[in-house]
């Protein structure tokens, strides 16, 4: 385990390429800089705390998380190779799946056995890896649908327009602001089904934002997105944090994670194998093992590695992968 000083340096290095980061970001970075990078570490201001969460499918344990705290107002990345149980864990937290055992609290409130809708109403709103744009609704309607506490969504009240017209008007203004921010305002009257993959991701984020969430959960926000859009997506995620929201996102691409996250949690085979700031966690032996499964039996201290021929062969293999 690296000592505190190394952690601080790593954090500072990470902070340097984010010179635009706002006060909140700095605060989150500062708060987390004193947290020991070890599995199950306590955070100064945890918004989400999970304990003993297990999900088994037949004989296979897909998720087995002993203890995890997620910091408020920070971007936490949940990474791991394919099949590590990230999405399953994510589905559990957001109420889309039921655990075999375990519990978790959100803002101090137990939410482990609540339905997905109630989890969302509590302020924890998610997006999906395979985007769920509501295709035959317009872009604007997609966002308006997300508005909370709309009296027009009650069956009997909905028949009397004056009861909800005012709310609807205010929601529309807000929705258009959000759409403008995601550069979707020109598509407002198009069917959501006609958007590109990247635009759908943005629309999902816009929709989530419309609910005024406390915590936003993004499931592989970068998957299947045109590389040109990735940069702006990352920017949007940072903006969410800078506005005071907590972000937890699942990703398997380590590079995207590096740039924007304040804290990284690594999963492999259902368990959390490492936690820490993005700069240092990638060097963790457990993480290296999890990601370099192909050579995990190669001793990195092996003298054979000094042999240029062996090294070249390993590198070629790595390229081919």
């Amino acid at each position, binding site marked *: 385990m690296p000592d505190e000083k190394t952690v601080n340096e790593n954090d500072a290095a990470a902070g340097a390429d984010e010179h635009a980061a706002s006060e909140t970001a700095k605060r989150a970075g500062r708060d987390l800089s004193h947290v020991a990078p070890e599995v199950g570490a306590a955070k100064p201001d945890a918004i989400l705390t999970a304990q003993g969460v297990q999900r088994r499918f037949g004989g296979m344990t897909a998720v087995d998380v002993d203890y995890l705290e997620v910091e408020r107002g920070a971007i936490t990345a949940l990474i791991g190779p394919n099949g590590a149980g990230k999405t399953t864990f994510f589905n559990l937290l957001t109420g*889309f799946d039921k655990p075999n055992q375990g519990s978790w609290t959100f803002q101090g409130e137990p939410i482990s056995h609540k339905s*997905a809708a*109630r989890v*969302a109403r509590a302020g924890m709103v998610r997006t*999906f890896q395979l985007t769920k744009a509501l295709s035959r609704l317009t872009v604007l309607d997609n966002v*308006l649908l997300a508005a909370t506490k709309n009296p027009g969504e009650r*069956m009997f009240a909905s028949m009397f327009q004056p009861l909800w017209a005012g709310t609807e008007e205010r929601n529309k203004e807000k929705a258009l602001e959000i759409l403008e921010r995601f550069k979707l305002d020109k598509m407002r009257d198009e069917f959501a089904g006609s958007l590109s993959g990247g635009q759908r991701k943005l629309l999902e984020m816009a929709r989530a934002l419309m609910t005024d969430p406390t915590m936003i959960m993004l499931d592989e926000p970068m998957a299947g997105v045109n590389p040109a859009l990735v940069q702006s997506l990352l920017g949007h995620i940072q903006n969410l944090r800078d506005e005071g929201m907590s972000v937890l996102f699942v990703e398997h691409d380590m590079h995207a994670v590096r740039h924007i996250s304040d804290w990284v949690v690594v999963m492999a085979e259902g368990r959390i194998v490492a936690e820490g700031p993005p700069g240092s966690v990638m060097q963790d032996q457990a993480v290296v093992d999890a990601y370099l499964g192909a050579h995990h039996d190669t001793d990195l201290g092996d003298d054979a590695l000094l042999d240029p021929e062996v090294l070249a062969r390993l590198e070629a293999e790595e390229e081919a992968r």
Partner: protein
Amino acid sequence: MEELLRVLTLALGELLAPATAAYALAAIGLNVHFGYTGLLNVGQAGFMLLGAYGFGISTIAGAPFWLALLVAMAAGTLFAVVLGLPTLKLRGDYLAIVTISAAEIIRMLGRSTLFDAQTGGSAGLRGGDYKGSFQDLSFLPDGRTMIGPLEYLNNGSDSWWTRLFAWSLVVLALLVVWLLTRSPWGRVLKGVREDEDAVRALGKSVYSYKMQALILGGVLGALAGIIYVLPGAIAPDAMGRTMTFWVWTVMLLGGAATLFGPVLGSMLFFFVYMIVRAGMRTDLMEFLPIPAKNVDHVAGVLVGVTLMLIVIFRPQGILGNKKELALDAR
């Protein structure tokens, strides 16, 4: 020529027939289920039969007209709740299986000797036993009235009064559905139709919206059942799977998820159906190798073929939006 005019008059009569209104109303209900919410209800005839029984049995028991109407609506609501409770949490296909079998159960129970005293078994209930309170409501003067080529009694079973009541109910249902579907509530239904999980992730309780839609469409189905039996009798075997299948044809023909689709679909369906049946019986069609006794069967086959052709070539129906449909690549 005279024969052709007779066929046309018959077909025109179908446009306003109470049965056409009943199918339109049932299809409006099914449209709330399938068109707006994406619920696969394959037992709309069950709701209709239950509505008819609810109305007929309570009237025979002495209930006034409006109470009998409420009983029918309550029966539709109860049926929707019973079917929805276990299935709406599951994937859509389960509702389809449950509704089709539940509708059959209602019909089988109705025609069994078990409740002979109430339902009249397979013979059903005679119209005269339950129509009185409805016909007493009429404010039309007695006599016959001719409008254009159509002439009916003012009051009675197959009368202008029945038509007026039936189509008023259709108009009222259209108004309610229009108010509901243009509202944020309707938007949630459409969201559920597109992707339940996405709507759930936004904090809406999908289950209760699906239940509300199932009840609304079911109540409209129950009312449609009343209209269907007002000019005739309650015969359980006339309200089985074929009826459900026709309601689907009517809805898909007009266009699912459109307001006027079910009404247009019903009018067009029965207009053409009459032309086909009556047309095949005229001398003009003597060259067809179809004996008169088979005309109804051939017409039935044509209905099936029509449904297939609609689904394949114009799944959005007559009033549907092509652009909207092009997106449906799920």
